[in-house]
């Protein structure tokens, strides 16, 4: 149906799409930077350099640096397992890894409270041994691992299913050992999908609010991640400071979208 001129319906649909995208997506993004900078660049930089905000930025980056690599390793591991072998319980495993994406982040935080909290399953025993997990950075990392568990695996599973095992079998029959096969054959085939999954994991870890707010205790300068800091600044009626902190995460989000769109244009796996 190629037409030289656009039909009326086409014009209406395209206009509507831009109106909605503008009102629901572009304006919200613009308002972040408009409010962060409304008192001038100097105030903006001072807000970012506020010790509690700076600490929150550091903690958020630290959490991502720990969580993203673990997610990559486990994602590859699980994808290899479920796409290369058939075994009883395989479908249960696939459902289990998807579950964290389906539950409310508040539920994610709550289940960890019932495991490591003062009245939790393992909490009292750990406390007896002098280990306190709740309201520490460790709890933030654990709960972040929970909410992002499916992110890398879900990109790899369909891709590896579709690629099949011929390349890997050829490498083995040519005398490669398991690690050589993985390093020189499997990994190059899935590296863009890994990167894609890692970008999504990173965005979620840095932005996680509900789950972290249950387990972190929100101790300023100690266990406050950026989203929690944004919320506290807002509750203190420091709106400009809150938007300044939010602008760092908004930049991360824009960067995520650019990388994602670049990868999609480059790779043919989606």
């Amino acid at each position, binding site marked *: 149906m190629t037409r030289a001129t656009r039909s009326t319906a086409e014009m209406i*649909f395209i206009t509507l799409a831009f109106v*909605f995208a503008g009102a629901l997506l572009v304006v919200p993004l613009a308002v972040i930077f408009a409010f962060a900078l409304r008192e001038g660049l100097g105030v903006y930089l001072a807000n970012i350099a506020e010790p509690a905000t700076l600490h929150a930025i550091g903690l958020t980056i630290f959490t991502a640096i720990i969580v993203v690599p673990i997610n990559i390793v486990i994602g590859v*591991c699980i994808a290899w397992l479920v796409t290369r072998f058939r075994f009883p319980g395989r479908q249960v495993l696939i459902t289990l890894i998807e579950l964290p994406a389906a539950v409310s982040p508040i539920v994610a935080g709550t289940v960890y409270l019932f495991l490591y909290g003062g009245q*939790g*399953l393992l909490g009292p025993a750990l406390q007896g041994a002098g280990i306190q997990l709740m309201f520490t950075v460790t709890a933030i990392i654990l709960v972040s691992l929970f909410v992002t*568990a499916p992110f890398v695996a879900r990109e790899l599973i369909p891709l590896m299913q579709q690629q099949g095992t011929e390349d890997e079998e050829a490498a083995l029959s040519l005398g490669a050992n398991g690690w050589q096969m993985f390093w020189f054959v499997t990994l190059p085939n899935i590296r863009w999908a890994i990167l894609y999954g890692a970008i999504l994991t990173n965005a979620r870890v840095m932005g996680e*609010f509900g789950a972290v707010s249950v387990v972190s205790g929100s101790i300023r300068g100690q266990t406050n991640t950026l989203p929690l800091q944004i919320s506290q600044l807002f509750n203190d009626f420091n709106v400009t400071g809150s938007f300044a902190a939010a602008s760092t995460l908004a930049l991360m989000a824009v960067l995520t979208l650019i990388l994602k769109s670049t990868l999609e244009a480059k790779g043919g796996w989606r």
Partner: protein
Amino acid sequence: MASKRSKHLLPGFGLTLGVSMLYLTIIIVLPLLAMLLKVGGMGFEEFWRIVASNRSLAAYRITFSSAFIATIFNGALGLLLAWVLTRYSFPGKRILDALVDLPFALPTAVAGLVLVTLFAPTGWYGQFLEPNGFKVNYTQLGIIIAMTFTSIPFVVRAVQPVLEEIQVDLEEAAQTLGATRWQIFARVIWPTILPAFMAGCVLSFARSLGEFGAVVFIAGNLPGLTEIVSLLIFIRIDEYNYEGAAALAFVLLLAAFVTLLLTNALQSWQVRYADRSR
């Protein structure tokens, strides 16, 4: 040689099985088990008293009705965006396509902060809405808007690949047979994208049920009026009422499980449909 090979041709079964099981047990199974034990230990009467209390019932009503309305809106918007992105070419198309994922990339707390500011009585949107009787902040309308924003991408991303794959010859055949454009959509296109559309709606609904960060900023959190289930759980934890939190978390977990099963069923329907039409 080939006959000697066992059913596991490739190496790494033991290693990946061991690592995966250990990791999933520590990170996912054990915490879920801890909560289930808590719920199991409280007895049915106590459990029922909590989940059927007036405050809980009001929270379910607000959460589910808001999620439902948000999903209907996103169903329509998602269809429009998917259609425009697959059928037409126009300047700015790639940017629009990338922008659709913003709600996934933007942290929910930032989304909440932005929405509450936009819809404040003096905000960019609020100054026009409020004088006309549309109060958004601290009302259910605010909850619906927050849920809508955070789940915009689901229907678009579910429908888009299916629309891309519909064979043009089917549509052309219908056209040669004298079908109008509306008939082509209703009889050829709509049945093909229906399973994907439904799957996207279920995902959108599930996300809205669980949304917390964006909603708490804008909802005002009045018990019985703008208190969603996730927030009630959070309040119970704050009050050290762990039974209350566990019982309600169990309800949300159950809802998540149902949506997961529903999505799986819809996806296999979609696969069967695609196979048949090939």
